[in-house]
């Protein structure tokens, strides 16, 4: 083996601290060589090891009888009955998207899909919660445009529908966009495979794209450093990866065929830390070791160094563990799909991950496979609430001059510009697509295509304003909002995945935010009986040393137990009572964390309105049930922008107005008190509905009548539907390009 580095500058350059170096030294009982050091550095990076967050993530609830695979695997898997399992996961691709928006987003989609088919599932849905700097900033517009094109370009072509997401613009993301991607897949329960290598003598077959110098050091450099808008960017550039959806599509089909024929004993995608991660992870999960022959790796460029081959993050690759007798068939299937397949490793019994120059050649590295994961450092980083927390919380966010009509118009935004660029219908499952509350998909058997008569619902939600004001309650509220969204399409929650997007973990305030968010999520998930089955942590989201507002994003997956007709629409019918269900806000409800306070009033602090989690649980269950029993004509949850925005969206959707009472000032119109839903019930069923609601302890108030061509609040405030529609529909096309020929 090559001589040990003498010089501390090497491990430091690789992002390893002196303590971490000592730890490696202790584990090996000798100095590591450069290759070994590089392997530890990628595997012990924040991105791969979760070293700053692990200690907090342990507090999340992760168990339920229907959870087949919880956090820690490539994706969470839940049992949804009829021998069908669902795999789900969410990932961030924030930093890559900041430098090359199109490819950053594209490879984000590619990566999350591999996590799903690694589990043996066919991916059938993608969601993309996106956050960018303000629309009046040209670079933020460029990033937004590029990211949406990237999701569209990759997702559509790889053939997985993008069925929902979010799009948020705020100053806090200027320079540091958040590109999160969720994917969901279905599999016959019996086909569940785990990423593990077992069976001494089995072969590790590298499938897919050739290995180039993409993302070399990407894990430690790209994934864990903040970006200023400085010349440093230039140095980081070469590590940008380019996605190839066509390669991924063939890889996906080939892998599913291998799984169908039972030809693999374990399979693992290649993501961060490339071959190092995939080989060591499969080996250590299977309690085995692995010999890896670097000369067998099909490379895209000449003269690649072993360290480059071992850490490259080239996209569209998978590692399959195969019994020698099945190799011929594996290669046959791969070549039918025009997929390269090379035997790069052998499973051994000694627990070592050895990197060899030819299977019988020189040993370039040798380390206990499990140490790359299990022995990664875990930090209990200092945490502290902001020093001025008390002062911040004492602020009154309702101040500022309100012009209710114009404020309402400015708070509206139709995301259709985004989702019309996404194939959201492929596989013929999309009963409720993007543009509504939750997304609702038909659940069909992955093998036979047979309908189960049930549906799977999805929603992703985040709210940096609430979480800035109070990361704990804010996070509980976003879980509740996501659950309410799926309730509106008739589903009850089964599980949660989450993406924790935070600033620099070396700032105690950021660690406090993260810890609080985990606690808030825990409370809400327990209340809704929806365990966390997976997640992702993205830290160092900062620009010029300023951290982003804390932005946990949750994805909730739920079940619609009896799907025979589409659920109610958002749009208002004419001449009916408009009801608001759920928690009743106090008369002097706080405006803290509202979109109104941030964007119009100008105050970002205060104390969130009280939130009754138990009430939200009752309300969501009641709504889901009412939808399933087809008792609602229209329904829409109340979120950002409060009741006025929700009502406006309902009016715009159908072109029918409403006269709303009581809500005649900016506080009653725009407060974001949680756990509320607007609904319309047929007049003749109204009394029975009210009785039922009160039996279920769900407050219902009649707040107005539908009809007319404008939306009115109280006696004074009137907004013509036309104005609402223009304000809502035009904002994104005007800022980001029309995309239609009338441009």
């Amino acid at each position, binding site marked *: 083996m090559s001589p040990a580095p003498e010089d501390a500058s090497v491990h430091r350059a690789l992002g390893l601290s002196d303590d971490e170096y000592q730890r490696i030294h202790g584990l090996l009982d000798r100095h590591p060589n450069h290759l070994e050091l590089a392997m530890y550095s990628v595997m012990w990076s924040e991105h791969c090891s979760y070293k700053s967050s692990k200690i907090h993530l342990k507090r999340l609830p992760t168990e339920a009888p229907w959870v087949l695979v919880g956090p820690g695997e490539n994706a969470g898997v839940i049992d949804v009955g009829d021998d069908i399992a669902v795999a789900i996961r969410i990932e961030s691709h924030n930093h890559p998207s900041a*430098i*090359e928006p*199109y*490819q950053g987003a594209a490879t984000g989609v590619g990566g999350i899909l591999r996590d799903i088919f690694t589990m043996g599932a066919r991916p059938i849905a993608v969601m993309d919660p996106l956050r960018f700097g303000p629309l009046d900033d040209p670079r933020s517009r*460029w990033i937004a445009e590029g990211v949406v094109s990237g999701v569209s370009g990759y997702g559509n072509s790889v053939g997985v529908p993008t069925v929902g997401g979010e799009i948020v613009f705020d100053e806090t993301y200027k320079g540091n966009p958040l590109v999160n991607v969720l994917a969901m897949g279905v599999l016959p329960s019996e086909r569940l495979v785990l990423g593990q290598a077992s069976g001494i003598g089995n072969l590790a077959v590298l499938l897919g*794209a050739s290995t*180039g*110098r*993409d993302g070399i050091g990407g894990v430690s450099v790209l994934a864990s450093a903040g970006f200023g808008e400085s010349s440093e960017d230039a140095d980081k*550039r*070469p590590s*940008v*990866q*380019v*996605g*190839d959806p*066509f*390669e991924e599509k063939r890889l996906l089909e080939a892998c599913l065929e291998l799984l169908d024929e039972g030809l693999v004993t374990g399979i693992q995608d290649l993501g961060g830390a490339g071959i190092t991660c995939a080989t060591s992870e499969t080996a250590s999960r299977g309690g085995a070791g692995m010999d890896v022959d670097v000369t067998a790796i099909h490379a*895209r*460029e000449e003269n690649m160094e072993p360290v480059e081959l071992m850490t490259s993050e*080239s*996209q569209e690759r998978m590692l399959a563990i195969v019994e020698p007798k099945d190799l011929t068939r594996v290669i046959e299937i791969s070549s039918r799909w*025009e997929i390269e397949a090379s035997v790069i490793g052998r499973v051994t019994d000694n627990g070592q991950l050895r990197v060899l120059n030819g299977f019988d050649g020189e040993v370039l590295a040798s380390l206990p496979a499990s140490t790359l994961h299990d022995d990664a450092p875990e930090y209990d980083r200092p945490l502290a609430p902001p020093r001025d927390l008390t002062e911040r919380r004492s602020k009154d966010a309702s101040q500022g001059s309100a012009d209710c009509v114009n404020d309402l118009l400015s708070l509206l935004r139709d995301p259709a510009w985004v989702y019309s660029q996404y194939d959201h219908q492929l596989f013929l499952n999309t009963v409720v697509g993007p543009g509504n509350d939750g997304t609702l998909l038909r659940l069909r058997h992955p093998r036979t295509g047979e309908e189960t008569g049930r549906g799977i619902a999805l929603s992703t939600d985040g709210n940096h304003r609430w979480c800035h004001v109070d990361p704990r309650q804010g996070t509980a509220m976003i879980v509740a909002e996501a659950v309410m969204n799926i309730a509106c399409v008739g589903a009850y929650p089964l599980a949660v995945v989450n993406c924790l997007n935070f600033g620099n973990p070396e700032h105690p305030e950021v660690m406090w935010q993260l810890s609080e968010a985990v606690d808030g999520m825990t409370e809400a998930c327990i209340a809704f009986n929806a365990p966390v089955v997976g997640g992702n942590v993205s830290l160092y989201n900062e620009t010029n040393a300023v951290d982003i507002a804390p932005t946990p994003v949750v994805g909730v997956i739920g079940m619609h137990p009896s799907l025979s007709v589409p659920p109610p629409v958002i749009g208002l019918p004419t001449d009916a009572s408009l009801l608001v269900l759920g928690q009743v806000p106090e008369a002097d409800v706080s405006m803290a964390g509202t979109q109104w306070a941030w964007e119009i009033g100008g105050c970002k602090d205060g104390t969130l309105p009280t939130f009754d989690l138990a009430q939200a649980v009752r309300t969501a269950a009641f709504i889901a049930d009412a939808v399933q029993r087809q008792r609602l004509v229209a329904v829409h949850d109340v979120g950002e922008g409060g009741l006025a925005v929700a009502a406006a969206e309902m009016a715009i959707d159908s072109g029918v107005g409403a006269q709303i009472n009581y809500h005649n000032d900016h506080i009653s119109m725009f407060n974001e008190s949680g756990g509320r839903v607007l609904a319309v019930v047929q007049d003749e069923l109204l009394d029975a509905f009210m009785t039922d609601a009160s039996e279920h302890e769900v407050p219902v108030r009649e707040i107005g009548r539908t009809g007319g061509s404008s939306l009115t609040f109280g006696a004074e405030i009137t907004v013509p539907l036309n104005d609402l529609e223009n304000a809502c529909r035009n904002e994104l096309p005007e800022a980001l390009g029309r995309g239609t020929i009338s441009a």
Partner: protein
Amino acid sequence: MRFEVKVEVSPREGIANPEGSTIERALPALGFVTAGNVRVGKVIHLQVDADSAADAKSLVEDMCNRFLSNPVIEDALVEVREG
């Protein structure tokens, strides 16, 4: 003065070029066995008014940096002809 400008935007060395690789894979099936190493880029023709060829060039180079190409993954080559 009016200038004809041609910009060639190509993937940077070492950056994957899926389109090129796919075409390359297809060639043998079409009977083109002697061709290889395919890389696909973009070519943009435009006209600009400027005082001199040098001005025209620097104007278009500015456009390249700002939106015709992304230097992170692409190289842009600007050629100016009097038009």
